[in-house]
């Protein structure tokens, strides 16, 4: 009996240690605002950039420079180059508590899932305040959906979460799979 009680206590401790801290108080999330329209065309159409894996390792345009695009409101929008449509959600967001981001991306060409993108988040409050190191992992399951965690915000405020897609690819030509999508996230 004593062993059972100790085992149960250890199991409870494990669950507590692997989850976020106390589930109390308000939670944060995407900042509501104007919907992203940066890929919309005046005629009602949409800009769509085709990608090719073969362009992942091309060093071609010596004058190309990176542009991450504007940070977006809400929980979905297109990447900076109009290659992907990106949606995200999260587990409960509270200051100094572990949480996960769940990101899904589809190709704007045909709506198919963006697979193998090795999504990497860049999270910061301002120019000098990145999110603390939490040694997070990115796991893709199912295809095109990426769970990233554990992550932490260590201060309240309006943070920027920028997702990098195919970060391992060079970003030197227009049809490189490399892309970025950034969103505001409010932390209470």
């Amino acid at each position, binding site marked *: 009996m004593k062993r059972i009680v100790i*085992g149960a206590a250890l199991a409870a401790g*494990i669950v507590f240690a692997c989850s976020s801290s106390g589930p109390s108080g308000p939670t944060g999330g995407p900042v509501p605002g104007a919907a992203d329209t940066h890929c919309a065309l005046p005629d009602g159409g949409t800009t769509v950039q085709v990608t090719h894996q073969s362009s992942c390792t091309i*060093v071609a345009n*010596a004058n190309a420079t*990176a542009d991450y695009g504007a940070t977006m409101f809400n929980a979905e929008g297109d990447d900076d180059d109009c290659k992907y449509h990106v949606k995200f959600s999260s587990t409960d967001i509270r200051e100094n508590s572990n949480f996960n981001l769940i990101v899904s991306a589809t190709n704007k060409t045909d709506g198919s899932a963006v697979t193998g993108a090795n999504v990497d988040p*860049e999270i910061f409050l301002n120019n000098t305040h*990145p999110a603390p*190191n939490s*040694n997070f992992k990115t796991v893709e399951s199912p295809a095109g959906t990426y769970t990233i965690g554990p992550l932490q915000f260590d201060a309240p405020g309006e943070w920027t979460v920028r997702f990098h897609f195919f970060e391992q690819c060079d970003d030197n030509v227009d049809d490189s799979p490399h892309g970025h999508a950034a969103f505001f996230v409010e932390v209470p």
Partner: protein
Amino acid sequence: MSLRLTIAGACLLLAGCGGTDGASCPNDLPAQCPASVPGFSSEISPLINNRCLPCHAPGGQESVTPLTNYQEIFQQRVSVLNQVYHCNMPLPGNPQLTADERALLLNWLVCNSPDN
């Protein structure tokens, strides 16, 4: 016996949760800008030339994010801070920053990257 096994299993599970592939990235971001700010010309520029320019220069793998002069570095200071602090840069397989270089660069970046 079974209690020992239970405890051993619990320890293994605890060690595994939330971890990474074994290489932990230090939480060593300076809490504030130090009184003695590292000099860009004397310390940071040579460091970046040595560690970053093999890729972040024309013709390099990351030529779209060049770091060849102060203006370019300042423009990308947020990404540099994030990538270096989270141990994503330099990429694996390339020469890594020493502990002293990492501290120097992070201290300069949390001072908002002055041209000093």
